[in-house]
């Protein structure tokens, strides 16, 4: 092994060095968070309310708010996204102006910075629609944000369904509605789920879009119109505005990272499922 390294050209050594550097940096970051965070996590931490501006106590209400924001975001974006994906994948030809318009807007939407989503959410949901700083405002803002991810995966899921199924169904005189709900959507479910999971991952990681839509209030929310502090905002607030908040910030950061690891693993597993599903029975064209 050593000999090989000595013999290999500079470029090879460089490439390996970069890989080691990158891996090392990320190990450092994750290691630091795990090392400092793991002591803080306990059942009590996860369930009790923050005290003393978050320096002590737990993150119970914050997890609830985060869950509610996610529920609103996914509850709105999933139907909208799946519907749009169906239209784009099944009912629109590549040259159709409407389809092209929607695709183009989605491409742009995918690149819009989260702080701009925050501005928009503040102006539209909080101010114009009068929802104020609330879980609903924050959730709706995130819904707009995750739509491109959802739609892309859902479209891929639908395109993965072999055309034989569509032709076979049409040849039996099945209507498009029936074909869609009984054959195409069930076959596309793994793809749809990948989108859902990736969307949740994006939404749960978001901070900037929530700062002035769902707000900072760390109390247990009583309704969707209450302001609710998400986990990411909690980390931000503890580390930036509260001196002595680092211990709990580490704990919250670790919780967030663990949630994301679980989400990623689920997405990878689902993607694997969906790619192997049809290979056995139908060949792709």
């Amino acid at each position, binding site marked *: 092994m050593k000999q090989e390294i000595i013999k290999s050209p500079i470029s090879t050594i460089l490439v390996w060095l970069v890989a080691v550097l990158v891996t090392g940096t990320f190990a450092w970051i994750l290691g630091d968070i795990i090392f400092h965070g793991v002591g803080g996590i306990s059942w009590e931490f996860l369930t009790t309310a923050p005290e003393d501006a978050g320096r002590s106590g737990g993150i119970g209400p914050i997890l609830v708010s985060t869950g509610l924001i996610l529920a609103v975001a996914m509850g709105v974006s999933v139907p909208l996204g799946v519907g749009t994906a169906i239209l784009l994948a099944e009912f629109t*030809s*590549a040259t159709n102006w409407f389809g092209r318009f929607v695709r183009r807007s989605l491409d742009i939407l995918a690149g819009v910075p989260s702080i701009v989503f925050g501005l928009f959410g503040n102006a539209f949901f909080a101010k114009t629609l009068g929802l104020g700083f609330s879980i609903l405002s924050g959730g709706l803002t995130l819904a707009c944000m995750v739509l491109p991810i959802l739609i892309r995966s859902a479209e891929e899921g639908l395109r993965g369904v072999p055309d*034989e*199924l*569509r*032709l*076979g*169904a*049409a*040849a*039996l*005189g*099945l*209507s498009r509605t*029936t074909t869609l709900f*009984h*054959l195409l959507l*069930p*076959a596309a479910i793994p793809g749809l789920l990948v989108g859902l999971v990736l969307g949740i991952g994006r939404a749960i990681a978001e901070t900037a879009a929530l700062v002035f839509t769902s707000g900072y209030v760390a109390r247990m929310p009583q309704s969707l119109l209450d302001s609710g502090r998400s986990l990411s905002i909690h980390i931000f607030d503890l580390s930036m505005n509260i001196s002595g908040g680092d211990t709990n910030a580490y704990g919250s950061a670790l919780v967030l990272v663990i949630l994301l690891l679980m989400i990623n693993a689920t997405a990878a597993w689902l993607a694997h499922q969906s790619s192997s599903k049809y290979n*056995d*029975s*139908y060949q792709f064209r």
Partner: protein
Amino acid sequence: MTVTNLDNSKARTQQPALMRTEQLSLSYGKKIAFEDVSIAINQSKITALVGPSGCGKSSFLSCLNRLTDLIDNCRVTGRIFLEKWDVMNRNIDTIALRRRVGHIFQKPNPFPLDLWKNIAFPLKEHGVKNRQEIDSIVERVLKDVGLWDEVKDRLKDSALALSGGQQQRLCIARALALEPEVLLMDEPCSALDPISSGVVEDLIASLRQKYALLVVTHNLAQAKRIADYVGVFWVRDNRGKLIEFGEAKQVFESPQHDLTAAYISGHRG
């Protein structure tokens, strides 16, 4: 050398044709797949279409039940009649049309559902709701295709677990359940092993009494064995044409066209 005119189809039919096409042409974008095809399909007869690969046989079949509606950038001109019904009319009920004109594909394409549902689900969609009625239809069509004894104990298993030949027969059963009048079959045996192929061929022959069958095949021997009428497609100028159409006996024994003669004697194609 001119392509023979095919008006003999009118002379030979005593009964009015169940389905017929007039000057049917189809193009994908700028590419013309086939041109000027006029044939008639009769009740209780097997009509075979033969010809080299890429001459538009599959495309021709998908015009007859308007599956072409699903294909991007494809344009069909000419006329198609099912009895007196103008199939090409934009406003016809395609669902009813496809119920009357069944289609079997080259590659078996059962739904990823269980066996029973593969047959029952389209039936339900066409308004057969009574469970007993469905069960009896499922049993009848599976017996018709000779699959009943093989699968009657595993109707709840996934259809994708069947062998290729069984899948193809299931697809035929699924089509028969809707009681079509015309059955279009696109090389129904070509994806199957010789034994399954033989079974499906016997099945096709046995369906003759009840249906009008239009069968595409690459297998001339098969066409000879089962067909009452034969149409020969050929590619000229990069587009498909029907160069010969007539009674099987006549086409095979005294073909009118040189290319047909060469094709059936194995010199070309």
